[in-house]
């Protein structure tokens, strides 16, 4: 019994016990359902062992949407708690746990997989490749991310959630002040998911550099591919910092090291420093692919080419460098003095310039375009004004002297939500709606889609604009309650209404998926949006090998040129096609990493050693395995091509 006491939740409540029961029942239902409908074999062959970038992309997207609802439930609980003064819905400890997990889940387990999922699905199609450079590594990336995400998500029912904020600043996150295993979950789960992300970064750099179709020079790549390319460069250079910081934090918490303690030569500020050396570039890892999606969507539905291609690329390259030199603006008030703050204030303002260039490029693309308002376009048009509110308040926060007024208030919370929701979430919803027909062979209903876009757009304003005011009035972030005399009540009530509106908006999206799945036409062709880039030139559903013949590229918009100017995109004869084999190793390694991480969190060293050996065993097996892939025979390629409507 003593052994099991460590798994108990240190600060339980009826809601947590109810969640335990719900999680248990869901797991039983999934296992029973899979067994009853005899789907285990199907699941294993088609999904768990797949190395197909399209399926991995879809699995990322499903995980992202699940995590969106997990993080969204956290958000609703927080807004409900704050909706009235002296509210007793949550106590301080639960509130701490909820805002900590909300942040981590939304950034690392919602936004990141959403972006990586779209990159996975779209990029090989956009550059005319048959898969990514390292398909099996790609599967491993996904399963590591998934293991990390699941590990993080069980924390609140096994051992206790992290409660030191999503930034997990030391010394609060150290053993003295965070005694439960919560922060261990933070350190280990993010470490595992972060390894997956780092692999993705390397994989996509190699893919974009080496696997483009003949004729597609760097300056002929579609804008989404460019943005993902830059984002992956930032991943490769920023994530190692997180890996090191988390490893040092783990050593502090589990092995009594003193990197971030306040005595024995440790330096607690170093954690904040390292966290933001990674954390600020991370912001651009999220926003650049989102900008890429907007570029694709706006150019498609303005029915013209993207304005200022070169300046778009140039501004992203400048952002990739500047994103590494602004991190101190996250802790202007930590005491480093006016000189250092001034330097980082200036670099921070400088980053607004290339971002402004991009905004103007989109506006100029819309100018004289024949604008078609579809759901993805609606999200993109809502993005421009809403994101500008977030951006301008960011410049306000960037002025270090003024920042002393805003620091750690709801003003900051409002700022980054107004950046991330219109910037990233709208882009992901636009991207999901835009690429939905390519993924699943039917379109989402436009009417419901537009309703949800407007609901989400307006609710974003209702939810976050009041925080600017209550923040300027002095409401601190992460405060679980406030007095009636403070006057914050009205702003927080409005904000709660906005949060409820957002919930309605996302529920509409779910309903839209259900509705369209049942009623939407399956006869939509392969190019339902009349788009311009290569991914729309292949069939829907996309065959396993993406392109039967490798396309020949000589412009930025090869597919548009084929449609409007009669250029030949696909030439030559059909041939047998070489494809990678499926593999169970990545999935098994994901499970092993989950168990390894779980044992590590609870400092159970014997299982840690066993699972470490097992992981190395998998790697050794992988190294000695002879797998040269397989060929899809010519007859099968011809058959598929004929069935899908011939090769135009």
């Amino acid at each position: 019994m003593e052994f099991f006491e460590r798994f108990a939740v240190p600060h339980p409540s009826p809601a947590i016990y109810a969640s335990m029961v719900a999680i248990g029942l869901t797991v039983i239902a999934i296992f029973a359902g899979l067994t009853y409908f005899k789907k285990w074999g199907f699941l294993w062959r088609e999904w768990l062992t797949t190395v197909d970038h399209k399926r991995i992309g879809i699995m990322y997207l499903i995980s992202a949407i699940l995590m969106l609802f997990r993080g969204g439930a956290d958000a609703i609980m927080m807004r409900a708690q704050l909706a009235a003064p002296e509210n007793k819905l949550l106590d301080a400890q639960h509130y701490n746990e909820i805002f900590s997990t909300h942040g981590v889940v939304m950034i690392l387990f919602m936004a990141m997989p959403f972006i990586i999922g779209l990159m996975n699905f779209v990029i090989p199609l956009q550059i005319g490749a048959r898969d990514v450079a390292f398909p099996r590594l790609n599967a491993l990336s996904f399963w590591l991310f998934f293991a990390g995400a699941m590990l993080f998500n069980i924390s609140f029912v096994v051992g206790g959630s992290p409660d030191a904020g999503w930034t997990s600043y030391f010394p609060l996150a150290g053993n003295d002040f965070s005694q439960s295993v919560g922060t261990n979950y933070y350190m280990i789960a993010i470490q595992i998911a972060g390894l997956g992300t780092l692999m993705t970064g390397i994989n996509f750099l190699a893919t974009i550099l080496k696997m483009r179709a003949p004729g597609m020079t760097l300056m002929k790549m579609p804008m989404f591919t460019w943005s993902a390319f830059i984002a992956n460069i930032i991943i490769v250079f920023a994530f190692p910092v997180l890996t090191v910081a988390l490893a040092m934090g783990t050593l502090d918490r589990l092995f009594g090291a003193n990197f971030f303690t306040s005595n024995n030569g440790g330096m607690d500020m170093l954690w904040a420093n390292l966290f933001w050396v990674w954390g600020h570039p991370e912001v651009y890892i999220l926003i650049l692919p989102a900008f890429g999606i907007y570029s694709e969507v706006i150019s498609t539905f303005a029915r013209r080419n993207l304005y200022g291609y070169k300046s778009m690329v140039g501004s992203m390259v400048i952002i990739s460098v500047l994103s590494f030199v602004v991190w101190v603006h996250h802790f202007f008030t930590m005491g480093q003095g006016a000189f250092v703050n001034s330097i980082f204030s200036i670099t921070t303002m400088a980053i607004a310039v290339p971002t402004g260039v991009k905004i103007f490029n989109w506006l100029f693309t819309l100018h004289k375009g024949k604008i078609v308002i579809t759901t993805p376009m609606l999200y993109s048009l809502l993005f421009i004004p809403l994101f500008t509110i977030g951006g301008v308040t960011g410049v306000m926060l960037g002025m270090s002297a003024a920042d002393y007024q805003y620091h750690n208030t709801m003003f900051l919370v409002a700022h980054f939500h107004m950046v991330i929701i219109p910037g990233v979430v709208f882009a992901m919803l636009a991207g999901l709606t835009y690429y939905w027909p390519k993924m699943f062979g039917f379109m989402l209903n436009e009417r419901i889609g537009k309703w949800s876009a407007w609901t989400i757009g307006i609710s974003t304003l209702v939810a976050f604009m009041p925080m600017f005011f209550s923040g300027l009035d002095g409401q601190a972030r992460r405060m679980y309650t406030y007095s009636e005399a403070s006057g914050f009540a009205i702003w927080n009530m409005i904000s709660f209404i906005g949060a409820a509106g957002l919930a309605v908006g996302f529920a509409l999206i779910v309903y839209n998926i259900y509705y369209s799945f049942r009623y939407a036409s399956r006869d939509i062709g392969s190019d339902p949006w009349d788009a311009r880039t290569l991914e729309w030139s292949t069939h829907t559903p996309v065959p396993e090998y993406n392109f039967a013949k490798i396309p020949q590229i000589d412009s930025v918009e090869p597919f548009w040129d084929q449609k409007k100017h009669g250029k030949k995109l696909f030439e030559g004869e059909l041939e047998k096609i070489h494809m990678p084999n499926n593999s169970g190793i990545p999935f098994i390694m994901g499970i092993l990493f989950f168990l390894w991480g779980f044992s590590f969190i609870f400092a159970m060293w014997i299982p840690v050693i066993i699972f470490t050996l097992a992981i190395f065993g998998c790697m050794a097996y992988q190294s000695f395995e002879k797998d040269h892939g397989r060929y899809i025979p010519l007859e099968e390629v011809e058959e598929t091509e004929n069935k899908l409507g011939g090769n135009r």
Partner: protein
Amino acid sequence: MMKELFPRKQVIGFIFSLVLTAVALLVYFMDMSFAVGMTILLVTAFIQAGLQLILFMHAGESEDKTTIYTSIYYGMAIAIITVLGTLLTLVWTYQFQ
């Protein structure tokens, strides 16, 4: 004939990298000031890394030469900015105040 087969460049490079290692080890075995020791370590480390990348990992010998060198320079720039910026923020600023 033997001259062409003998990998002269690689052998010299190998000996040179051993020498660099030996010089770096001096810092541990000899009694010297912190500044001198760190300078020796930094200089030998960078030469060693360059030697390994160029001579033994063939950084400049394929068509991807530009990509490889660009990413190395970019990585170095980011690393230097991070280290100097961190020192500025957490150490130097308190020394000059």
